[in-house]
């Protein structure tokens, strides 16, 4: 038995030390679905063109990516590049786990990107985006809801018409609308539609007000008064309903659209409608997504990392992304090119994004999400009133901010 053990130890040890003389580069990202496939192909291309390099891409969930990156980088390790949404930047910059980009790239290169494409916090650039996105839009099943609405009132009527209970068991078989109403991120368009917003310039939450209360009440009305959305709905339930053709419309972002086409839904994209009472658009949060450089990348490795970064955010890649994935480019030249102009889905997406409002970069954003989530769920399951919910959100976020930034 002892011999067997030694043998296995030998295997274990050799398995972890294959000699590879190539320079290793690591990227952690949170790209999913078609975007991930696209990304992996580009990395493979890059590796093929650079035989002395080995770029390795690893997918991690957004939260987990941030968690492990901070721990790893503080420990003096971690991947060379990370790809994530702009709201990570506050935390990462504060913990000094990423490098300011002006230490990596000259201003002349940064100037090629649109203003939203270079994410700044406290006057320093931290993240170079390959796309502007993450914006929620109204996706409608053309067979069930042919034309998108212009106002909420109009929309509610459409929803009532498209919610059908065929077998009369009191449970609709087709819903007018569905979305993940457990996550506060999906609540933002309603909040902005009623004139609210999450925080002020200084990162203090601004949730305990009439706008929040009205927005909550409206969502509750959709479910309890008009009965046009499911009784309980998280991300998975919504996706299933819409893909099965059992929901006429869904609120979701660019990462999900391709999946609807694959499951055979003939879908259209439109901005979320104006709220009739306020006349304001239901503006989603928009955020850039892109790359940041690990603070631990040594100077001698920096040129290689820079080349890779420029490739991944470069003209060729962004153009192909616009064409194949319909993402909104951040390079000025690509933004103005016919790759954007000739892509109808991208045009629809742009139209929706124009109504959006930029997500704050402040590190407190994380506490806003965490603090809103609980009360929002409590309101939705009827445990507290909308007024109470708005107050709790404010309190929770304030407490979390106080705890974290003590």
């Amino acid at each position, binding site marked *: 038995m002892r011999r067997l053990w030694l043998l296995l130890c030998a295997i274990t040890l050799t398995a972890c030390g294959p000699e590879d003389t190539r320079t290793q580069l690591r990227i952690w990202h949170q790209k*999913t679905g078609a975007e991930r496939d696209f990304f992996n192909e580009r990395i493979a291309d890059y590796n093929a063109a650079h035989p002395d390099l080995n770029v390795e891409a690893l997918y991690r969930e*957004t939260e987990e990516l941030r968690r492990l990156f901070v721990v790893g980088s503080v420990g*003096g390790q971690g991947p060379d590049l990370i790809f994530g949404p702009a709201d990570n930047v506050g935390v990462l910059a504060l913990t000094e786990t990423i490098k300011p980009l002006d230490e990596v790239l000259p201003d002349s290169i940064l100037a090629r990107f649109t203003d939203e494409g270079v994410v700044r916090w406290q006057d320093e650039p931290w993240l170079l985006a390959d796309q502007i996105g993450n914006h929620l839009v109204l996706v409608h099943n053309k067979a069930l809801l042919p034309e998108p609405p212009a106002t909420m009132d109009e929309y509610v009527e459409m929803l009532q018409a498209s919610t059908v209970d065929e077998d009369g068991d009191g449970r609709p078989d087709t819903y007018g609308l569905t979305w993940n109403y457990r996550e506060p991120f999906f609540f933002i368009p309603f909040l902005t539609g009623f004139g609210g917003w999450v925080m002020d310039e200084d990162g203090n939450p601004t949730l305990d007000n009439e706008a929040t209360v009205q927005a909550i009440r409206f969502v509750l009305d959709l479910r309890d008064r008009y009965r046009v959305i499911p009784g309980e709905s998280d991300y998975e339930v919504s996706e*299933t309903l819409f893909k099965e053709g059992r929901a006429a419309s869904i609120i979701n972002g660019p990462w999900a659209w391709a999946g609807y086409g694959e499951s055979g839904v003939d879908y259209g994209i439109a901005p979320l409608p104006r709220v009739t009472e306020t006349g304001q658009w239901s503006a989603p949060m928009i955020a850039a997504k892109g790359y940041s450089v690990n603070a631990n990348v040594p100077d001698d490795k920096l040129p290689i990392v820079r080349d890779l970064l420029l490739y991944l955010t470069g003209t060729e890649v962004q153009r192909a992304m616009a064409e194949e994935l319909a993402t909104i480019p951040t390079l000025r030249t690509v933004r103005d090119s016919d790759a954007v102009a000739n892509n109808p889905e991208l045009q629809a997406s742009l139209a929706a994004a124009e109504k959006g409002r930029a997500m704050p970069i402040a590190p407190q954003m994380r506490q806003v999400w965490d603090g809103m989530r609980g009360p929002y769920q409590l309101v939705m399951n009827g445990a507290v009133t909308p007024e109470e919910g708005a107050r709790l959100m404010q309190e929770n976020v304030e407490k979390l901010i106080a705890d974290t930034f003590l």
Partner: protein
Amino acid sequence: MAKPNSTNLGGMIWAYAVLAVFAFISVYPITRIITVSLRPGDRLLSTSLDFIPDGATLDNYRVLLFETPFLRWLFNSLLVSVVVTITGVALASTAGYALSRYKFRGRNSMLGGLLITQMFPATMLLLPLYVVLINLRLLDSYLGLVVIYSATALPFCVWQMKGYYDTIPPALEEAARIDGCTPWQAFYRVIFPLAAPALVITALFSFMTAWNEYVVANVVLQDTAMFTLPLGLKMFQNDMSTQWGLYAAGALLVSIPVVGLFLILSRYLISGLTLGAVKG
């Protein structure tokens, strides 16, 4: 002769009914996994309670086996688990023996200490362990994993082995010593084979620790080619949409080896699992 009149018919029906209900409860969630793995498309959710779903297909299994690195992960997991099992058995059987047979200063605190290691929230060990592994250059290596898993499994295994040795009369090795055996021979030739049922439990427990672990592996392994099965399976869960079919198919295939081991070893489970208490 058995005494048929010692239990009445009602009692028998009741006993079988209880067993049947609990057997159903035990098995039911597994049938749900099977159902999802057979569903076409990526639909975990359906209001159907059918065991075999509409349009059942083995496509998920085909994709899993031939289009993902599943087999590679399977090999990795097997390698790590087998090494941990062998380490666990070798160390727990010897340490348990020492703690059962010898009285020495610090023995009680050692037994207590092993129990105490279980009281510390494992999540808080992550950060310091990570720093240590970085400094020892053990990230992305199985050596780090094997050491951590062995240390996780050992406290229970040592207790368990010690408990079993306690049930074996010391007269046996005394006799062996009189016949001229060294202490090691007395242990290795006489007692060790007698402890087979407990060794089986130790092996099973060590194997499961390594086979099912996710949190530590997630921190230690960063290269997808080195992933163990739990990490691989987690890859099918995206941020917002999960490839549930693949996940379920994978979950089922991951479970088969452990369940298989349990089936084969279940008769040892009863006689071998002694947490240091049954005294002859």
